């Protein structure tokens, strides 16, 4: 019981309060503590990432074993994962590793690491393409979902339309006053609402954090009493 529930809550409470106190104390001892906690967090997070990798590999090996429909794609995941990780660990992340430079003298400290090739020519184009799919989804959302159902929605629509059209050359060509109008909207009503929302969100965050440190909010530990 102690290990299951009390100890985790104590750990969370201790580090929560300690890092808050640290914020107010500029002494070197407190800075050492701060840097140590940051490093620890980075290390523990790396292990949680390892869990992620393990989960993915497990998911896809099961699919392949059971020959689930589309299991061939799981093979794609495992093979590409294996190759990328292999050349990444051996050949260096951003700059070539020393091992690689010894093996292949063509690689100099300033040259691009092999991993960067898969990053620049495979990961990047695919990611930015997926990002750009948003333009299409947005078009369809604009057509189907953006209805002036109520006064609120109408306000949203009108502002969106003014900003959309006023920020391109054609819009300025149609009406010269657009840039000033947009500037005004951004600087006043937009800023005011953004602030209001943010203040609310920050208050909510502070309250939830307090509950975590005091051990009242414990959902993050999973269920269980």
């Amino acid at each position: 019981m102690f290990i299951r529930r009390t100890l985790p809550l104590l750990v969370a409470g201790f580090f929560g309060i300690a890092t808050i106190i640290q914020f107010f104390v500029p002494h070197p001892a407190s800075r050492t503590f701060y840097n140590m906690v940051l490093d620890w967090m980075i290390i523990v997070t790396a292990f949680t990432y390892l869990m992620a990798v393990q989960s993915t590999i497990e998911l896809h090996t099961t699919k392949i074993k059971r020959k689930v429909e589309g299991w061939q794609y799981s093979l794609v995941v495992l093979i590409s994962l294996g190759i990328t990780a292999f050349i990444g660990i051996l050949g260096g992340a951003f700059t070539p590793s020393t091992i690689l430079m010894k093996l292949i003298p063509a690689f100099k400290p300033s040259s691009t690491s092999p991993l960067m090739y898969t990053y620049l020519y495979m990961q990047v184009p695919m990611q930015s393409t997926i990002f750009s799919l948003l333009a299409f989804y947005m078009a369809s959302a604009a057509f189907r979902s953006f209805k002036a159902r109520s006064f609120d929605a109408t306000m949203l629509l009108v502002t969106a339309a003014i900003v959309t059209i006023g920020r391109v050359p054609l819009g300025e060509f149609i009406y010269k006053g657009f840039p000033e109008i947009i500037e005004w909207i951004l600087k006043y009503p937009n800023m005011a609402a953004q602030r209001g929302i943010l203040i609310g969100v920050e208050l909510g965050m502070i309250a939830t954090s307090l509950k975590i440190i005091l051990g009242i909010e414990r959902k993050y530990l999973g269920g269980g009493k």
Partner: protein
Amino acid sequence: MAISTSIWIWISALLTLAIYSFLYKDNPFYKFAEYLLVGISIGYGISVYWHNTIITKVYNPLVHDKDFLVIIPLLLGLLMFSRFFKNYSHLSRIPIAFIVGAGTGLSIPSSFEFLFKQVQGTMPTAFTIGNLIIIIGVITTLIYFFFSMEHKGFIGKVSRVGITFIMIAFGAAFGYTIMARISLFIGRIQFLLSDWLGIIK
């Protein structure tokens, strides 16, 4: 300019097209690209963690600097794996509690500082219509987020004004995001038409 001869450009271009093919319908090319992306992004993540965390934060301090304090987070990290053993899975709560506890502790003070900056920025340093609008906007928006009062009568009316402000802000954000996303699509088209096919200059 002519069609590209670089194998890497061709790979990028074909993968780009494979993903766009999804707009027509889900198909094996898209699926291949999708799963490939999952695979290489994890592989990339492993490599970055390996060099930036395992080597620099664990291996080097432990082996070169003889800093044995690193063993504590190492053990905490290893406790994560207790999840795979049914009877000990609760042990993994300790590292999670550590991350959550330290994380919230780090965030509370900066949340306050952020709050102060927002309130300070709202103060009217000059008396103009604009500043008045900002103050009214902030106050009404805050009242919209009142939970311990029913939105009726005066409070109800004020919170209506608040939600109107919110909607204007959302509209502006929407407009700007449309602009950014179209720019991204333009970027991909430029890549395809110019770097790959060499149709345009």
